[in-house]
């Protein structure tokens, strides 16, 4: 009985996963990384027509959930995986997942071009986003109400900002959660007294504020040099996660991303290469 059932199982399911034709790599996760991931995919597919790379966003949390559920091959994340997420991956796939640092990002603070503020300290940013400061005059600007733009809580950018800038404190309830960093940029561009945060790649068309570690430190913008030197205080890695050690087409794709061509695209999009 067992033998027959085993044969039946193999016939029914064992080979059901074989897919003929073009090899498909699915990528899902961080909205911050979605443009970068699309550029990688476009260039790679142009050079490797036998491979299809499908990229979607949704946020780092959504991407990690998809990796755990087995509905994506690669997860893009703008924050490291949490322990609880690693545990779920271990339960389902027996691995902690492979973490691949693929780019660096300086998280920018955006203000409207008409806003005279040019720099903020980390403490001021924290006070602004936790609601302790509600008026631009308290940070050296005009007597105007601060309008806060933030991200949704499934965003890795949101989590990173909360953990590293707000030091775990909650966002002010007046902060408006936007569905993507592009939406934050658009909102700030239209709102003279708005302030937002997000990846440097989305910083076109609005002005970045210099960030100071403290009141006596000089202010820095998120340039490659400032991030590499550690002077810019809100810098982070961008990650790719896969379930198992990459092999075959997947390995070739990841090696290509970490190679000269992939890292060149990192710079083109506005992020910083890892080497």
């Amino acid at each position, binding site marked *: 009985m067992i033998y027959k*059932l*085993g044969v039946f199982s193999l016939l029914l399911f064992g080979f*059901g996963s074989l897919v003929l034709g073009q090899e498909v790599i699915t990528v899902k996760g961080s909205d911050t990384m979605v443009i970068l991931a699309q550029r990688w995919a476009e260039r790679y597919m142009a050079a490797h027509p036998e491979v299809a790379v499908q990229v979607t966003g949704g946020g780092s949390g959504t991407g990690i959930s998809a990796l755990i559920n087995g509905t994506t091959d690669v997860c893009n994340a703008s924050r490291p995986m949490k*322990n609880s997420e690693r545990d779920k991956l271990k339960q389902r*796939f027996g*691995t902690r997942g492979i973490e691949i640092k693929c780019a660096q990002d300086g998280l920018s603070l955006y203000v409207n071009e008409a806003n005279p503020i040019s720099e903020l300290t980390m403490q001021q940013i924290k006070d602004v986003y936790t609601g302790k400061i509600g008026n631009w005059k308290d940070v050296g600007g005009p007597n105007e109400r601060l309008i806060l733009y933030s991200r949704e809580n499934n965003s890795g950018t949101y989590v990173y900002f909360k953990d590293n800038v707000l030091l775990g404190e909650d966002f002010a309830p007046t902060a408006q959660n936007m569905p993507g960093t592009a939406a934050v940029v658009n909102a700030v561009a239209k709102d003279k007294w708005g302030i937002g945060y997000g990846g440097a790649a989305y910083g076109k068309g609005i002005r970045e504020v210099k960030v100071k570690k403290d009141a006596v430190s000089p202010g820095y913008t998120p340039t490659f040099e400032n991030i590499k030197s550690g002077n810019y205080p809100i810098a982070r890695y961008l990650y790719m996660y896969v379930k198992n050690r990459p092999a075959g087409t997947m390995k070739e794709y990841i090696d290509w991303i970490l190679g000269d061509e992939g890292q060149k695209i990192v710079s083109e999009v506005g992020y910083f290469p890892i080497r």
Partner: protein
Amino acid sequence: MNKLSPFFASVVCCLHLSTFAQGVEPASKEELEELKSVVEGERESAMEYRGYVDALRKIKISGYMQTQFRLTDLNGGTAQFSGGNFPANTNKMFQVRRARLKIAYDNVLTQFVVELDAIQTGVTMKDAYLSVIEPWTQSFGFQMGVFYRPFGYEMSFSSGSRETPEQSRMYQTLFPGERDLGVKLFYSPQIGPFSFLRAELGIFNGSGPASNEFDNFKDVIGQVVTQFPLDELNAAVDLGLSGYLGNVRNATKFLWTNGESAPGTKGFVLDSSATNLGDGAPRRYVGLDVQLYYDVPVLGGLVVRGEYITGRQPGTSTAPTPAGPNGTSQTTISPAAQATGPVYQRDFAGWYVNLVQNIGNDNQVIVKYDVYDPNTFVTATDFVSGNNLSVADIKYSTLGFGFIHHWDGNVKFVFYYEIPKNEKLTSSTIAGTSPLAPFVGDVKDNVFTFRVQYKF
């Protein structure tokens, strides 16, 4: 109407903008101001709706259903630890083993959770708890209600994720229902230098999830878990140490403990001290669990889990169908209600090793071997008439193996075959009419399970 207004306003805006862009009729300053106020109004409406959406996103609904077909060797077969016994005249049956619906309101640092199980025999509550995490380090918190007891690994490994259809025999015996009513404190940092550590300590009724408390004894349960990631080796090791310190009220003055009932005859000895009435019979467990993870090239993740639990268990049954409220099991279960008979104290030990090899993303092969000895003081040759040993004292080992195919992110098919082996008693000392007579040989209780699970 309110819901439609943003749409109509957007259309109006687009028409205005379109006209403006085409330069057919340049908008006046007043028209632009009007347009600006419309846009501003709609933006405020959108923000309001976003607030509603954000609030709704905190409500999380999940669940899973396990429907299965099982087959055993004999009509009316005993398969208590393989998903339930078979009715008389039946050796094959369909079942809805579990149909869980979990609703959580997750406010990041506070949580409300209720989980129900609806199957063919009725609806029961599985989880109902709240949890609060402090906002400063977000590492400490407490949980209160009915939830998994913080002991070992397999206890809190969701049956929706577990590869084998059922828990090992020792867990089903020692912790029926897995959960209990109580409160626990926990330390579980998600990031930072101590994120490898998790500690939990709780106090519980001790009577399990399906009943109200019946004595004043409360049980203390705790565990410490450490994780050692070995990323360079594509591996990881997790270790856990657990303890259980509890008591069960003795409703009689009779307390049976392991000893020699006659010189050279191992069994139980009776203590009939009047002070035993209402006293607490100790319930003491200590457990060690290990999980090894290794990413096997080409194949996928390999998991080896092992767990060992030993201690002292107060039970009540000395016969296959004991009288009283605890007469639901042939083994020394933890009490679900006040015992009416004398308490039997047994020193026990149990362990299991479970191997899971992933094959690609969709397939898994499982092998599991578990052993449970409910009374380590005695062996098969000690079963003689007059020393009060019963089926509750028989040691079991169970070999199981199976195959899982994950159809997609929701559906999985499980094929599992389980071979329980009881220790064989000596025929010369067991009367043919004794309830122990079937255990002179290996009882025919192998079970095949085909399960389909849908999880969302």
